[in-house]
């Protein structure tokens, strides 16, 4: 298939998104059932961006010159937007903090273990267990260990991310073709020189896909932690809305998360493209998947 120009691809992406939005709107019109009076199961866009958005001002606890609903103010877009901004910032701090710490720890651990074949053999079995252990099973344990505060949530997210990054790093090192290491050795490179000039650049394509995978995990871990015990953040709004069957709020917050995830992906893609300028197109296409 002929590759499309970037502007062409972007146009197609936009059209697909608009179509999905239109289908949603259509569904809301042909299925007008309500979970409770005034709460449609599928909220159309005219509801989402007016009543739903306004209702988020209920979560605003005052400050910054905008009075909260509890203080007697009526619902307003300023309080609603502040709610979204503040809770997004809290969630993003958890995601980014967990992602950064988890990636760092996972990568350092993976590289250290890969130094010798014995290291790889020793961690192989426990690593398989950790990978298959459902992340959410660990939430209560982490809450008791580290508390339901920011530190605890970041520790939990970092754990989830580091397991994936660790396994991905060990895998990426093992997947470097032996011929490159033989070549470096026969040209006179020492073990530490091979690590710097062959292993580190050689794992970059693998690390890129691993970190994209970990990005998804970080979001899941943070939302999981917020569902179970947090008093703020986007996940908290969703769980709170669920208790009162506010389906439209849940949908709006999910949309906000979707936007953040898309922005993360795009930024990461841009940032790493230059680092991987050397990689053949085929392997880069694999990565994008």
């Amino acid at each position: 298939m002929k590759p499309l120009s970037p502007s062409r691809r972007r146009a197609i992406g936009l059209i697909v998104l608009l179509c999905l939005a239109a289908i949603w709107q259509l569904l809301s019109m042909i299925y007008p059932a309500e979970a409770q009076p005034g709460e449609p199961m599928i909220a159309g866009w005219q509801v989402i961006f007016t009543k739903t958005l306004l209702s988020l001002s209920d979560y605003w606890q005052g400050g910054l010159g905008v009075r909260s609903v509890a203080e007697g103010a009526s619902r307003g877009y300023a309080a609603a937007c502040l709610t979204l901004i503040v809770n997004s910032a809290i969630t993003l701090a958890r995601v980014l903090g967990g992602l950064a710490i988890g990636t760092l720890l996972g990568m350092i651990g993976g590289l250290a273990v890969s130094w010798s074949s014995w290291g790889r053999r020793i961690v192989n079995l426990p690593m398989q267990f950790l990978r298959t252990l459902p992340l959410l099973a660990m939430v209560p344990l982490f809450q008791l260990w580290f508390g339901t505060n920011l530190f605890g949530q970041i520790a939990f997210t970092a754990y989830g991310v580091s397991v994936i990054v660790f396994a991905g790093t060990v895998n990426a090192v093992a997947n470097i073709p032996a011929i490159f290491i033989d070549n470096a050795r026969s040209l006179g490179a020492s073990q530490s020189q091979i690590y710097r000039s062959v292993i580190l650049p050689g794992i970059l394509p693998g690390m890129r896909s691993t970190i994209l995978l970990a990005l998804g995990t970080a979001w899941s871990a943070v939302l999981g932690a917020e569902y179970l015990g947090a008093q703020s953040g986007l996940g908290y709004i969703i769980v709170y809305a669920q208790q009162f069957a506010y389906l439209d709020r849940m949908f709006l917050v999910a949309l906000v998360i979707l936007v953040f995830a898309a922005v993360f992906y795009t930024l990461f893609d841009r940032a790493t493209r230059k680092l991987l300028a050397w990689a053949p197109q085929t392997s880069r296409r694999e990565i994008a998947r």
Partner: protein
Amino acid sequence: MANAVQDIQIRHLSRRFTRADGQTVTALDDLSVTIKAGEFVCLVGPSGCGKTTLLQMLAGLLRQSSGEIEAQGKPVLRPGPERGVVFQKDSVFPWMRVIDNVEYGLKCRGVSKGERRERALHYLERVGLMQVAQAWPKELSGGMLKRVAIATVFANGAEILMLDEPFGALDYVTRHQLHDVLLDLWLDGEGGRRRTVIFVTHDVDEALILADRILVFHSGRMVEDLAVTLPKPRSADDLVLPELVNHRHRLLQHMGLIRPAAAKPGQ
């Protein structure tokens, strides 16, 4: 004038592998041979005859089961920059530009930036790749990648050069162009001294065009040691000269492609 210390001495060298089914396979069986400094030696034989195993042991990438290898007066225990290898598969690092690949070995050994760049550019010019010095390897053809690999080992100053079926995957024209490049570099070593070249191939004609000496292997044993005296450089045209025709006949016999009883055409 041959300096025995510069020679490669191989004594009673064997290598055995244990297969997955528990059987022991002897890839190389009690080989003793001396390769003189400056010689261009081709190792020929069908696949599985032990020639690549021998090369890997000479390179220090594979340990022998028994016996000794001595190169430049020292036992071979590990890879070293004095013994350069051009591999069968592509070994050029895809994450380094061409020029950085050629400089790599020098950089590892702490050669200054200016000097290694000069050497790298010199050898890139010798293999005809000046114009792609700043390109990524993915932008190069298979033949060009082999040239980069050759320039890399020459720039690295290897005294002994080992090539493992380097041109097997290339087309006829590219292969002959690279023969010329290789011979040109071999004839014109640094300080007027020829390097030792050990060239593994299963292509009989390639061996006849390149070698001073052809060692024929079969089932892990050296079965023939042929000297080729025709002056170099030789071309594909020279393959019809009597010496090469005779050698060719012998080589093909060893490979089981001519039955010993069959009469040679025209004789």
